[in-house]
């Protein structure tokens, strides 16, 4: 099985902006570098579709730089376990693959935070970022009525993209209130001048779309699919007819792999030093897993991690100052878009919280914590392994739903069996 196994000086898990930057930095320092991704694409969720179009903007520059730097690339390769120190087990179309590393960089991104409300499981209720990704891939929106309800700066970008795809964006409902948004806006200029331009561009594209701060979706209605959504703000409750409800309350770092590898996490993010090294020597973490900060922060942290993993931390130079600015921007965003209590608590007793196993809020409320609820209800034990309901129960009940057991993703039994050296020649 030696052909299924390979060793690299630097292995980067995840080929989004942070991963591409990390692989570029390590490979440009002359390290034998591999970057792998679970999807067939490079660029992560944020640059989805750009590779196929030959790349645009910064995606194009980074993809070209990666190729020039000579890093190896493995697509559709999903890490599922770490069977021994310095070894990752991954699933790929060619079968299971063992990958050896001397330095490991985890750039595994984030997922959207969804909060359950009555009707949130109806087809037609989609993640805000999730729908952006689908639209980039050709998902048809022409003529569809869309309500966007959630939180964060993504709401503008998403509305602009949906409109460009032909959607009729009926309303943007932002749960945070105007006072916080204004304070956030005022705090922007010294931090990130580029973001102001970006925001202005989106605003311009959005002329005519009502934006209501301090408003949120309380329920979705429909028989077999979404037909309408009921919203609420300080002035009252009203209903909008729509085909699609895009919802999401910001992002949660993906921490399953760092936790599996023993990396320390704190307040829902991986702990790293100023070289992006985790509590485990030789394992670096960059981008969203260290705290949500978007593309700019991911690129800076990815480069720092790549240089540090290559043994050339001094090459990071001025990037450290950029990193500090990016961290300040992240903190300002967290404050501006902090969740109001009402949106944490919208699920009725009959609302499914765990979508994989159809476990309702009423089922869960009988238990005092995540572990007991899991054992008795199977909450979090379906294929998503708690990635969706984990964030929801944290916000709903304050339960700590961290998971760190292998496999970190559903795998075929063959993948787990294959590396076993025992002879298995006899057939039955």
């Amino acid at each position, binding site marked *: 099985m030696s052909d299924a196994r390979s060793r690299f000086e630097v292995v980067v898990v995840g080929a989004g902006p942070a991963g591409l930057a990390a692989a570029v930095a390590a490979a440009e320092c002359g390290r034998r570098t591999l970057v792998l991704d*679970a999807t067939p694409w490079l660029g992560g969720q944020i640059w989805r579709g750009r590779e196929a179009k030959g790349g645009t903007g910064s995606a194009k520059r980074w993809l070209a730089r990666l190729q020039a730097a000579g890093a190896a690339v493995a697509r559709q390769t999903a890490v599922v376990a770490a069977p021994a120190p310095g070894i990752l087990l991954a699933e790929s179309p060619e079968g299971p693959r063992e990958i050896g590393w001397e330095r490991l960089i985890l750039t595994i991104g984030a997922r959207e935070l969804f909060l359950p409300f009555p009707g949130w*499981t109806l*087809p*037609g209720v989609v993640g805000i970022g999730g729908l952006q990704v689908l639209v980039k891939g*050709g998902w048809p929106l022409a003529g569809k009525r869309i309500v966007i309800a959630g939180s964060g700066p993504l709401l503008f970008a998403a509305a602009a993209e949906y409109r460009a795809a032909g959607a009729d964006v009926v309303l943007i409902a932002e749960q945070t209130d105007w006072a916080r948004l204004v304070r956030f806006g005022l705090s922007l200029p010294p931090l990130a001048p580029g973001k102001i331009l970006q925001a202005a561009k989106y605003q311009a594209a959005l002329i005519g779309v009502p934006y209501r701060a301090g408003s949120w979706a309380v329920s979705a209605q429909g028989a*077999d*699919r979404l037909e309408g959504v009921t919203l609420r703000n300080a002035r009252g409750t009203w209903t909008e007819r729509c085909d699609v409800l895009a919802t999401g309350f910001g992002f949660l770092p993906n921490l399953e792999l760092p936790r599996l590898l023993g990396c320390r996490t704190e307040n829902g993010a991986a702990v790293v030093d100023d070289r992006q090294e985790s509590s485990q020597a030789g394992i670096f973490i960059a981008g969203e897993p260290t705290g949500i900060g978007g593309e700019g922060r991911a690129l800076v942290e990815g480069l720092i991690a790549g240089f540090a993993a290559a043994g050339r931390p001094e090459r990071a130079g001025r990037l450290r100052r950029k990193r500090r600015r990016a961290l300040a921007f992240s903190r300002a965003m967290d404050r501006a878009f902090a969740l109001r209590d009402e949106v944490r608590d919208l699920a009725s007793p009959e609302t499914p919280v765990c979508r994989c*196993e159809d476990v309702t809020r009423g089922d869960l409320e009988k238990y005092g914590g995540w572990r007991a609820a899991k054992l008795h209800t199977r909450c979090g034990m379906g294929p998503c392994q708690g990635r969706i309901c984990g964030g929801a129960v944290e916000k709903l009940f304050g339960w700590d739903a961290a998971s760190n057991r292998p496999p970190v993703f559903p795998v075929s039994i063959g993948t787990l069996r294959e590396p076993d050296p025992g002879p298995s020649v006899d057939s039955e």
Partner: protein
Amino acid sequence: MTETVSLTINGRPIRVPSGTVVAVALALAGESRFRRSVAGHPRGPLCGMGVCFECSVTIDGRPHCRSCQTLCADGMEVRTDE
């Protein structure tokens, strides 16, 4: 000219640009119910990023495939609502 691939969705043929994921092909075919939950409720894509498994369908007889992460291929047979 864009290249295309042909597949069937619940027995009906459809042609989509190559590089299209199965979830998008299903939407283009007008399907909204991708799977049924354990309690029998209709479900469709939520996360779009391969995390939630709500877009799972049967592809070439293999159940529980995430349609948002699977590229369409010539001759592929997709079944929903299972």
